[in-house]
């Protein structure tokens, strides 16, 4: 257990090393956020919807702030698999799944917190109608935060499954691009899931991709009442158990028939 904690801590530290990249990232994400907000403001002008504009804008800002959690960011492993350096990792007296799970989690957690905090401060400072709205209430905020944490567990499990598939196919760029895209669409990054046709929403909010950011944001904005919170927890919990189990199975299978690339 101590070893895993050490990995987690090391990765957290590593993420804080690239401050220039963080500032650049915040700048880009703010710019994109502003463009999206301008677009939705124009779309809402003179055609009111059931869903208030302020909640779409809040959705956009929270999505932009935690963008780093969505994309798979660990290029290391893909390289290791291609070059055969993964042999070193196989020698470690650790469970490989746990090792990469914690690595991914630390990167996503630190990477997105470093960007999200300054971004959310900036988004609060924006003039009325452009910035992020306050949460419905304090319990809503706490429910959202807790949901975000479970969502993070969910997305790390998903990412590990992607990596397991990478191990089998070697050149995974096509595959990875497609999985990333699925993630971008179904997590609400390209278009808020709240703007999808209502009949689609019934299905896509149940998928694991929606658990990461969509569910916590809906709890935050109050679109889902607190009475829905247990239901969200159950869905998230069920996905975590299922995805971790599936990932563990894949990784174990992979380790049985691993082929190392020489060179």
């Amino acid at each position, binding site marked *: 257990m101590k070893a895993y904690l050490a990995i987690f801590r090391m990765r957290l530290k590593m993420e804080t090393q690239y401050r220039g990249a963080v500032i*650049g990232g915040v700048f880009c994400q703010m710019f994109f956020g*502003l463009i999206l907000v301008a677009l939705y403001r*124009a779309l809402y002008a003179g055609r009111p919807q059931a869903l208030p504009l302020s909640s779409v804008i809040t959705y956009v800002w929270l999505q932009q702030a935690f963008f780093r959690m969505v994309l798979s960011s660990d290029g290391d492993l893909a390289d290791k698999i291609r070059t055969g350096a993964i042999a070193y990792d196989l020698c470690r007296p650790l469970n490989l799944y746990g090792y990469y799970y914690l690595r991914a989690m630390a990167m996503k957690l630190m990477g997105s917190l470093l960007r999200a905090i300054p971004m959310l401060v900036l988004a609060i400072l924006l003039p009325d109608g452009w910035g992020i709205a306050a949460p419905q209430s304090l319990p809503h905020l706490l429910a959202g935060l807790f949901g975000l944490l479970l969502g993070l567990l969910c997305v790390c499990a998903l990412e590990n499954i992607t990596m397991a598939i990478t191990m089998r196919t070697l050149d995974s760029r096509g595959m990875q691009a497609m999985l990333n*895209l699925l993630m971008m669409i179904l997590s609400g990054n390209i278009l808020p899931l709240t*703007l999808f046709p209502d009949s689609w929403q019934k299905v896509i909010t149940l998928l694991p991709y929606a658990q990461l950011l969509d569910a916590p944001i809906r709890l935050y904005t109050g679109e889902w009442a607190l009475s829905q919170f247990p239901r969200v927890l159950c869905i998230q919990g069920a996905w975590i158990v299922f995805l971790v189990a599936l990932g563990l199975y894949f990784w174990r299978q992979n380790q049985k028939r691993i082929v190392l690339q020489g060179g």
Partner: protein
Amino acid sequence: MDTVKLYLKSMKMLLRSQMQYPASFIMQTIAQIVMEGGEMMAVLLIIDRFDTLHQWTGGNLLFFFGMMSVTFYLTECFGRGVTGAFPSLVRSGHLDTFLLRPRGVLTQVLCHAIDPRRIGCIGVGVISLILGSRQSAVIWTAGKALLFLESILFGSMLILGLFLIEAIFCIHSVKSIEVVNALTYGGRSACQYPIDIYPRPLRILFTAVAPFALVLHVPSAFILDKPIYSLPGFAAFLCPAAGAAFFLLMYGLFRKAMTYYRSTGS
């Protein structure tokens, strides 16, 4: 003329080398189609929910989207040397060899790479254009067709010019600074939709600084018979030249930057 021949020959060679791994190529092309298809789906879903955007109908919006994706991905396909490969050329010192050969540096950089997978994105853009022009009931004339081609040509020059900014920074700093691409990618996202829906600061940015609006939106609006900025018809034919001007400006700066180029020595 000689240069054109050289360029075509390099393209043929690069294409052949890319086709050596057909499975990977097909997989990645499909990924590109899905990617751009996802973007198009977002537009379709927005149309489904909101019907219109100010004066623009759903068909109009699809046309604007198609213009941007065809132009942008044509540039990424043929300009790969600038849009993708340049930082690694500088970092690895490979650019040195270009300085010794009796051709311009930019020509050689353009000859250096091609990205045929982008054909998937371009295809999605073309479908969007066809759907958009059908649904908007565009009456095509020779003039409009000419304007359409002009817009795409100058649009590609504008986007290539924007990517040159990154190259210029890269020559000075070796490391590629992705922040400078905010204008390029931000422009692509923003200008998938017509310029007049945005508030003034964004309008100014994408008209006067990175003139996407002049190069893509003014001609598109003319083709759709809904002129923006209340410009007369002939202006639609003049505005896209802003793309060429932007490219020439950046090209000048690029040449200047090259005089400061110092090899990494590796």
